[in-house]
């Protein structure tokens, strides 16, 4: 059944024929440098200005609770999301929610925190680990009341508390800039993808619930996450942490980009809760095996998981060596049954070498959930910028550490931290006046936002992104690290940062979004390489071939990144179990 208005996407053959591509880099089917054939009248783009007490950026699990709790604490609250509430970022795909129920757990919360700390080799912040356990039941109950555990599509339960409270919600608005005035947060600026319109929002307090990000890799549903919040905050002086860690989810070698197919029917499952189950799931071990032995896995259904040991490789504490191996039973979908309890991609252990799961890099560019993002300056999600908070994967709380530990803690941690940040931001907003931002200042932001549309020529964001992927995603750069390769990769990344990012072009609002996302990915790549070069040891999901041992003497420390007074990226150590000063 078709009608004249039905559409079919081009096949790969047609796509290449249309682009005229033949060989080499051109086979990517994307023009590199070219004239910018702008499809819209840039001078006709208008601006809409909003005012609120608390601005929540991001519509996932953290953003939901941040908005609800800020509102309930008495603050005028607004949510803005690049996508749709509950249907963007990683939230729609997480199906497991960790709950610490003292009536059913055999151990105490102290036991739980200690176990996570042992698995994480000290990389976790125990204050945030404990907070997760303490608040998880209450957040799960609220989600249950909204119907979250009764359905497969999160938009519906998420919209319920937002509509009940009449919280203004702006969807499909890409925020690109945070505004700081007089040393404190003053708002944010961005644009709509569906309309030729920029958006400015004046706010007393801002909570980044923008998730983490990657390099738009294949096989994991984070194509819309590009560390936007982290980079915006870095640019106004926030400190960032956790960039050396690596999430290790894998995908199949056949149709590696097919997220849904690779996770079986999991994306359509009803969410559920689970109790304490602490792992030390690397993902980097898969990359090490592939690096040492060549591609070690025969693909296809029923592929046998390699059992022989390889010498060397990442350290796994003995207590956790046999925990968290994928079931690999081949049932329930292409990856076999997802690990018990978790049932969700975000926060889940790497699916590993279950049948057909045979190439890494599905989540390339993302660190461990909750390990990368803004440096928390207290236990209430505050950054070093007055009025700016972050929660969930945008906060480098190191709740779980630099390795997967507690199953299902990703969704639960986002809920818990969102609620805490919401209340903290509302309290802050109660102490300050609405910031004054001059019209001229707002025009500076909108001019910068729209710059890629005004360029007569430039580099296509899709081409720059694929070039960045080619630099960063190879196993011997991102996962199995050594100084020489990272130094080389960094030189490429600096070239993209200095020469190509300033010349990104966009022909329409969709490409404008890609241009800003591409720039954010370039800066995140620089952070990942610099932090990985600085960390001269191996620990958790950070593995260096030239420093393969855990170095407790020198590296019981996190790495914080900030922008120096000269604009250059600076790095510093923050000892474990301390707060920054």
């Amino acid at each position, binding site marked *: *059944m*078709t*009608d004249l*208005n*039905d*559409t*079919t*996407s*081009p096949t*790969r053959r047609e*796509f290449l024929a249309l682009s005229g591509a033949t060989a080499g880099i051109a086979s*990517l*089917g*994307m023009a590199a440098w070219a004239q910018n054939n702008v499809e819209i009248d840039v001078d006709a783009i208008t601006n809409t200005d909003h005012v609120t007490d608390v601005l929540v950026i991001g519509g996932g699990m953290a953003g939901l609770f941040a908005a609800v709790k800020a509102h309930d604490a008495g603050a005028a609250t607004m949510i803005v999301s690049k*996508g*749709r509430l509950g*249907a*963007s*970022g990683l939230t*729609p*795909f997480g199906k497991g929610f960790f709950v610490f129920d003292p009536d059913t757990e055999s151990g105490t919360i102290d036991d739980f925190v200690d176990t996570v700390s042992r698995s994480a080799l000290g990389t976790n912040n125990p204050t945030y680990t404990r907070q997760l356990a303490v608040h998880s039941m209450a957040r799960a109950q609220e989600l249950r009341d909204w119907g979250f555990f009764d359905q*497969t*599509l999160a*938009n519906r339960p998420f919209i319920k508390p937002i509509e009940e409270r009449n919280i203004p919600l702006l*969807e*499909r608005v890409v925020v690109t800039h945070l505004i700081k005035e007089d040393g404190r947060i003053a708002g944010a600026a961005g644009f709509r*993808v569906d309309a030729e319109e920029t958006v400015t929002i004046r706010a007393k307090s801002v909570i980044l619930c923008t998730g983490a990000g990657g390099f738009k890799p*294949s096989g994991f*549903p*984070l*194509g*819309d996450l590009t560390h936007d919040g982290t980079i915006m905050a870095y640019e106004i002086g926030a400190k960032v942490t956790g960039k050396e860690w690596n999430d290790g989810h894998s995908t199949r*070698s056949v*149709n*590696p*980009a*097919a*997220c*849904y*197919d690779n996770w079986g029917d999991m*994306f*359509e499952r009803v969410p559920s809760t689970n109790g304490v189950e602490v792992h030390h799931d690397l993902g980097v071990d898969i*990359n090490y095996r*592939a*690096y040492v032995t060549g*591609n070690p896995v025969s693909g296809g259904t029923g592929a046998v998981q390699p059992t022989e040991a390889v010498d060397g490789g990442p350290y796994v504490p003995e207590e956790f060596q046999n925990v968290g191996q994928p079931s690999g039973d081949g049932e329930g979908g292409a990856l076999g049954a997802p690990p018990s309890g978790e049932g969700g991609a975000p926060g889940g252990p790497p699916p590993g070498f279950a049948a057909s799961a045979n*190439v*890494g*890099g599905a989540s390339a560019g993302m660190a461990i959930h909750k390990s990368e993002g803004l440096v928390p300056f207290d236990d209430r999600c505050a950054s070093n910028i007055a009025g700016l908070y972050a929660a969930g994967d945008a906060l480098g709380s190191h709740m779980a550490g630099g390795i997967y530990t507690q199953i299902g803690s990703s969704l639960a941690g986002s809920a818990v931290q969102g609620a805490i940040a919401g209340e903290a931001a509302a309290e802050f907003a109660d102490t300050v006046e609405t910031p004054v931002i001059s019209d001229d200042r707002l025009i500076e932001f909108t001019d910068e936002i729209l710059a890629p549309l005004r360029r007569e020529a430039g580099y296509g964001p*899709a081409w720059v992104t*694929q070039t960045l*992927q*080619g630099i960063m*995603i*190879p*196993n011997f750069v*991102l*996962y199995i690290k050594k100084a020489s390769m990272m130094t080389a990769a960094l030189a490429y990344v600096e070239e993209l940062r200095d020469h190509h990012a300033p010349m990104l072009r966009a022909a329409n609002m*969709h490409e404008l979004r*890609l241009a800003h996302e591409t720039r954010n990915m370039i800066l995140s790549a620089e952070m990942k390489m610099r932090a990985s070069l600085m960390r001269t040891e191996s620990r958790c999901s950070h593995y260096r071939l030239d420093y393969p041992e855990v170095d407790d003497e020198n590296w019981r420390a996190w790495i914080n990144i900030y922008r120096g007074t000269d604009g250059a990226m600076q790095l510093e150590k923050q000892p474990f179990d301390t707060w920054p000063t």
Partner: protein
Amino acid sequence: MTIKSISGCIGCEECVKSCPCDVIRMDGNKAYIAHAADCQICHLCRMYCPVDAIEMAPEKSIPVILPWG
């Protein structure tokens, strides 16, 4: 190929709103595949579609970069 086809669209825009990567847009009262290269094959559009109008395929329309091969 990513989203293979949209057939029988009723114009409710659920897929446009639910696509994390802004792949689908409206042309009048019909949804169409505007940016196939950006599809992450997550099937949210198909799951939110109330009339099962969207058919998916597992192939990406552009080459993918993997850590090894």
